């Protein structure tokens, strides 16, 4: 098929189907935040370094600022808004609060998605594995100390 400058895509985000026409140049993070109004995922940089935009695409942890929305056509996307079930926090979210693993909360959505991906793959990670798992998520408030503690606690 020929190259096009915009296209209708179908995505499932946190279990809900969406069909939208979107410009080829539209980044996936802008599509999630501006077009679908799911503003939980955030933008903290413009070079793919900070991880605040991390989401799961078909179970794989990615930075949604380095993907075009059209690339996600047909995918199942999980964002932070899908972690809790109608207001009931899951274990990881509760551990983040219990251990004061967030202050401003701006990196937290991306951090939770990275931790979710890590724990699905490795049920009891060591401290080094936890730090390696969130290496792609910059936090400027916490120095990562309590984030590592929270993930360790959620793993038990």
């Amino acid at each position, binding site marked *: 098929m020929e190259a096009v400058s915009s296209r209708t895509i179908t995505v499932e985000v946190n279990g809900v189907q969406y069909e939208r026409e979107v410009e080829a140049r539209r980044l996936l993070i802008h599509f999630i935040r501006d077009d679908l109004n799911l*503003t939980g*995922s*955030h933008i903290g940089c413009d070079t793919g370094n900070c991880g605040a935009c991390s989401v799961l695409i078909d179970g794989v942890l990615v930075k949604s600022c380095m993907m075009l929305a059209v690339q996600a056509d047909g995918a199942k996307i999980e964002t932070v808004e899908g972690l809790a079930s109608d207001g009931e926090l899951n274990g990881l979210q509760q551990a983040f609060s219990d251990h*004061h693993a967030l*202050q401003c909360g701006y990196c937290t959505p991306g951090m939770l998605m990275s931790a979710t991906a890590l724990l699905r793959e490795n049920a009891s990670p060591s401290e080094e594995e936890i730090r390696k798992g*969130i290496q792609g998520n910059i936090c*400027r408030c916490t120095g990562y100390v*309590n984030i590592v503690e929270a993930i360790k606690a959620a793993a038990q």
Partner: protein
Amino acid sequence: MTETTVTPERPLVVEEGESKAGFIGQNIPRKEDKRLVQGEGVFFDDVKRHEMGFVHFVRSPYAHARIKSVDVSKALELDGVYGTLTGDEVAILTDPFFELSTPPGANIKDYALAAGRVRHVGDPVAAVVARTRELARDATELVEVDYEPLPHVLDGEESLKDEVVLHEEAGSNTVWSGVFDWGDFDAAVEDADHVVRIERLHFDRFSSTPLECSGCLVEFNRGTGQWTIHGTHQMPGVGAIWMAPALRVGIDKLRFISQDIGGGFGNKITLHPQYTACCLLARKLNRPVQWTEWRTDQHTANTHGNERTFLDVTVPVKADGTMLGFSVRAIDDCGAFPRYEPLGCIIWAQVTPGCYRWRNVRVDFTQVCTNKSPVAPNRGYSRMQHLWLTERIVDIVAGELGLDPIEVRKKNYVKHEEFPYETPNGCVYDSGDYARCLDIALELIGYDSLEEKRQDAESRGKVFGIGIGSTLDSGTNNFGQSMILNPELQFSGNNEVATAKLDIFGEVVVTLGTVPQGQGHETTTAQVVADILGCTPDEINVRAGHDTYWNSNAGLSGTYASQFAVTGLGAVKGAADKLADEMKQLAAAVFGCGPDDIELVASQARIKGNPEAALPFMALGAILNANNAGLPPELDVTLNVRYVFRPQFEKPDLERKFGNLTLTYATQIHACAVEIDPETGVYEIVDYAAVDDCGNRIHPQIVEGQVHGATAQALGAATHEIFTYDEEGNLLTPNFYDYHVPHALDMPPMKTGYIESTSPFTPLGAKGMGEGGGAGIHAVCAALQNALGKKGEGPIVWRSCNPYEGVWDLLQKPEETRKLVSVETR
């Protein structure tokens, strides 16, 4: 790279005061967390309006150039573009923002967009508004700006020569200069056994780069002329003081709203130029406009921390290691526009002696403009730079005289029994025990097994070093210090506001004047109010964020300068006390007894000794709000109170530049262990301890979180974070691709300890804390110096930022830095 298998121990509890009843001092769950962990916070970029336009700025590629013409015609022709704004329009429609300094700084003209001349790469020249973010960016490429490049200056000392003048209307690059002279420095030099001289030290330019960049959504109401700004401004009180006169409107026309902010660290205080441009666009286009700043814009044009060079440092020292004082010439580089400056020229004087008892200090201070991004009060503002100077002096003096830097600290620290301690320029350190904190830090880092650690490192071909960083968080400014800079300024004291009400269904609602960006204000406020009203924090509804329309802010409201625990909670305590008193008066009127017979316990107002006679909060609220017939006429009770907290300050003596400039002084003593690979200069922080003393801790977890965060930012600034410019004036670290902030794997194992020296000057005995005074930078520099130098030999660590090549140069050419230091022994 050692595997970080050491898990940070739980904080070493040293002084477990009697466990206070009530919620203050407990780690209650944070009220902010529930929404934030579900991605349901509301940050400025989450706010949307129908038909809003997206703003994108056209920015200068030149460090210094005259603007000959700006042609927006092609941009306007692009389908989907709503409109534009240029510097000429701004110069017509607004007045320049008022300057804090005296001439020549006072004559600088600072507009929302560059008018006539651009002064740094990234300086906004014009703005375009369009239907989508992408279209706005496309349109900026169609705006044709004809620049006439001018010579530029990027170095502070060079700029002082005024060969290249940035602001013609000021006629000089000097923003402010003055000499501070306390005690008798010359006599001290006479009396000294040694005089140590340090030719040059340099505090590098960096910033705490909050993860959320700045931005706003601005709506204009044509009927009332009212602007509503959903944004990230940390000090709306001062922001409005800048913006209203520039826009030629009353201050009430500017309504600031924010709920959640993704970190600020002082970099969201000087947003008035960009916000004013957005206000003009919202009015001009009669549509809401939304500006989102991207990371590269934030680094190249928003704000940096102050860069400061220290020259000709002279330190008279007695034979026994007692330091008598110091003199220094300081040159502070504030970038292209002063804005919040020159406040930085006096703020350091809050901690003139640092943690030490020397009495004779002379500082010749000059602040200068350069063709670089403007500065803002970045975390540790101005005190960090000065405290780094005092700590470098202590380490270099100890090194040159062959003394143990730890013993020299203990000998010269202000003693525990000397508090409250008046500094040479009249500030009063409220309480503390620096030596004790140092001992705890040494214990946490296993100082007694120093030699084994050194040998173990050497066996792996590494050079080991341990360093101390002692620092202060001076909190709650007396803005009267600004008068020392410019006697005509009408700022002094400080204030913060809170309101509290009991409404019809008995719910307690509190509003603040502060602008939290992660410090947990809703939680600590609920703790204070719950303890006063005798209920639980869950029953206290603290409205999230800030809104001018709550009418709970004052001129100096905001969240900055480590002061919430004092000013914010001081206002909250005042409001809660007033509300409690009114609740007792109402209950007394209902029960027919005196207010003193009433106590507030278990969410009820009841008669002491007769618990059955109790009115639940709901009853009190209902009676006053909807069922008040029969209440005594003289009962003046509203259950809706507003309180303004004002710390007790005097205006300083402008002649002697003398007076109490800050209310409280929290202490942090850090110890850092490094291992250097001598073949490459690469080094790793292998162990770290931070001991904190900020008086009574309201929420220990939140205090520790601030210590962790401040340390991480300081370690970033000490190792890789630096804003370096090439000779064209291009910033070489314009985003996170080259500006390397610490990631999870970069952080060392961190151990924390604390003591609580109650403050005698604050309502809750707490001290403001959180900026951290750059303790991590001092500790890393000290550790590198300890590893590299031996008595009177080896290199001198003279810069605050030491990347691998910096350490490599120190190793390769020790004589280049050694010659910066000389010792005259009598």
